[in-house]
């Protein structure tokens, strides 16, 4: 709309731009068409972080693509790498030592916890609950300490490589991990009391942005969004990878399908992740974690393959076409955030402007992942 004086506005609807500079939208823009306080229509404007990852990947060695795909979702790096490495390994039949599988599980779950904590922080700040932001980001840092102990860096791990993991875990890792997990389990109770039980928060999220089971399936929702709508679907159970088939854990499912359920699914998933890490540390067998010598060229066979993993935001798929050379012919990512973006439009229509942050953030939309 042209910038004019407000008293000259005769239309009933006004357009309000949310993002990219806006405390309610990071690297994403949507234009809301408002009738009074009701959102009549949403015009999403993604693509602010489009970096043509798939095309760049065609000019890179297979090993170099691991950090590349991690950049797509920095908060969830190991899961992203896990999906890619799984595709490569299954395509060319690379065997992975047993211990490496457990280490991969630990890395993936640490990654999931940090990602969910990131979600909680941002969700808190979107509801203007700054304490939740500070607590989540503070506790997230303790987990980043663990990942830096395990993988060598805080965020972009590049830990999971074809044929194993980069290096074995340090001697003092289990002790430190147990300390952090004990602390975190105690802390989660306080999270629950100050945020989930908080009547103001419940009032803002319960019954807001309800996604029915049918709509969730029809629109292709994935991950916690799908599970909050009552669909029990998780790649970790349905198509196990790493060591998930040997580990006992539950998949939290909620029936309500509103923002509160989506938050609760993530909350319960963090508790499950803590359990998974504990079990993996306990059951981990001895043995090698990688081939003797790491080489930058991976022996990838000719062919094509699709593999998927359960990233923090949902099911993440990689499709690789290889012509047997050092670089892939084509790499296609199917990212969960992009699939959940469709739902945003569906959910926002008819809600009020005040519900926009609660709905938008409850999808845990990560723009670089959707734009790629």
């Amino acid at each position, binding site marked *: 709309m042209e*910038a*004019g*004086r*407000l008293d000259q506005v005769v239309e009933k609807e*006004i357009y*309000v731009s949310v993002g990219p500079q*806006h*405390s*309610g939208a990071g690297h994403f823009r949507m234009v809301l068409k408002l009738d009074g*306080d009701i959102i009549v229509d949403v015009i999403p404007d993604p693509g602010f972080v489009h970096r043509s990852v798939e095309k760049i990947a065609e000019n890179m060695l297979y090993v170099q693509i691991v950090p590349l795909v991690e950049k797509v979702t920095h908060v969830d790096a190991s899961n992203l790498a896990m999906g890619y490495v799984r595709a490569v390994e299954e395509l060319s039949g690379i065997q992975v030592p047993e211990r490496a599988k457990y280490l991969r599980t630990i890395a993936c779950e640490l990654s999931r916890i940090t990602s969910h904590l990131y979600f909680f922080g941002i969700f*808190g*700040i*979107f*509801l*203007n*609950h*700054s*304490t*939740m932001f*500070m*607590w989540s980001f*503070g506790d997230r840092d303790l987990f980043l300490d663990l990942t830096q102990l395990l993988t060598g860096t805080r965020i972009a791990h590049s830990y999971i490589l074809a044929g194993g993991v980069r290096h074995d875990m340090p001697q003092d890792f289990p002790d430190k991990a147990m300390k952090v997990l004990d602390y975190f389990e105690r802390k989660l109770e306080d999270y629950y009391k*100050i945020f989930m039980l*908080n009547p*103001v*928060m419940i*009032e*803002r999220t319960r019954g807001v942005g309800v996604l029915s089971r049918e709509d969730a399936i029809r629109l292709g929702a994935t991950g916690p969004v799908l599970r909050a709508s009552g669909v029990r679907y998780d790649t970790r159970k349905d198509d196990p990878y790493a060591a998930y088939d040997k580990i006992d854990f539950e998949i939290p499912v909620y029936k309500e399908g509103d923002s509160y359920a989506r938050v609760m699914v993530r909350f319960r998933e963090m508790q499950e992740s803590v359990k998974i890490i504990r079990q993996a540390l306990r059951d981990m067998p001895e043995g090698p974690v990688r081939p003797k010598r790491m080489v930058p060229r991976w022996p990838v066979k000719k062919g094509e393959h699709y593999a998927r993993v359960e990233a923090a935001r949902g099911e993440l798929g990689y499709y690789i076409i290889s012509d047997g050379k050092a670089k892939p012919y084509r790499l296609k990512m199917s990212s969960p955030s992009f699939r959940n973006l469709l739902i945003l439009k569906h959910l926002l229509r008819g809600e*009020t*402007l*005040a*519900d*926009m*942050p609660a709905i938008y953030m409850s999808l845990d939309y990560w723009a670089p992942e959707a734009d790629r």
Partner: protein
Amino acid sequence: MMDVAGLIIRIVKYLIYDLTHMGPVFKAVIFPGLAFVFILAIVLVWLERKMAAKVQMRIGPLYAGGPEGILQPIADFIKFAFKELIIPDQADKLLFIALPIVSLVVAMAPIAFMPYSRYMIISPNPYGLLFAMAFVTLFPLIILLTGWASNSKYAFIGGIRAAYQQIGYELPMWFSALGVALASRSFDFVKIVESQQPLWFALTQPLGALAFFIAMVAEMGRIPFDIPEAEQEIAAGWFVEYTGIMFGIYMVSAMLMKLYVLSLLFTVMYLGGWLPGWGLPEAWTFVKAFIVMFLIMFFRAVFPRTRIKTFVNMAWDKLLPLSIINLLIVFALTFTGFYGGVQP
């Protein structure tokens, strides 16, 4: 010339007498007035940030200077004072420039009627409660005007929200205040406090006190009712276009003066002001008001923001009946002579 010199000498003599005997100038400029309020404002900003930081397991402002970074608010203010002023092309310029100053005046005016003790009051007035409440009521209109003058969509939505919010809390607030006035049979703050002699009104009118408290937090625009300036929905709401010192003035008036004035109002109306009155009566008032301020600032660390819809629903469904029931109870009690003692 001699006359002028004599006049100056007389003025100086008067000032000395006034300042040493706590006359009107002392009251207006130093103790319940300007100097005290501005020092308190600095301490409050610092305290709010520090307290939120402690709940959030972090430190808060530290390196700006002073013990524990107490100079941080001054640094912020200096920065704003020397920042560029931007007046949007499309704005209503006169209103845009004038409104911050008007808002400061309106926000600070009730201080004149607020008693710290029987004598420590800038402008004693038999209708002090009415005046103070009238000025308090005026502030959302300034927010609405600001939203209009900025001619920005975010600011406009913020202004509309403020007006909408006022529709919710205004009636419960006045009805609760009416209960106090009825019980003490006066609009005079001094009489209101004195008539709380055995029991505070917070104890004899708990429903009214609760309704007034919630309406008061909404009036301040503090979390959980900071709906007009909702950062995450409408950028920063009604002051989105203000820069530099004009924003600084808004921060002082909207964020701090309202907090201070309304907390003091609550103390005087419901918490018995300077009662029990022995020792230094001003200290009693101050400590009580400070606890109220502390509690309201503490909400920031615990609650998220409500929605405008819910708030207005709650105000009409819960607060208004609460305040009316309170009023009826007070009405009944006055006939039984429960609040006797102070005659009109």
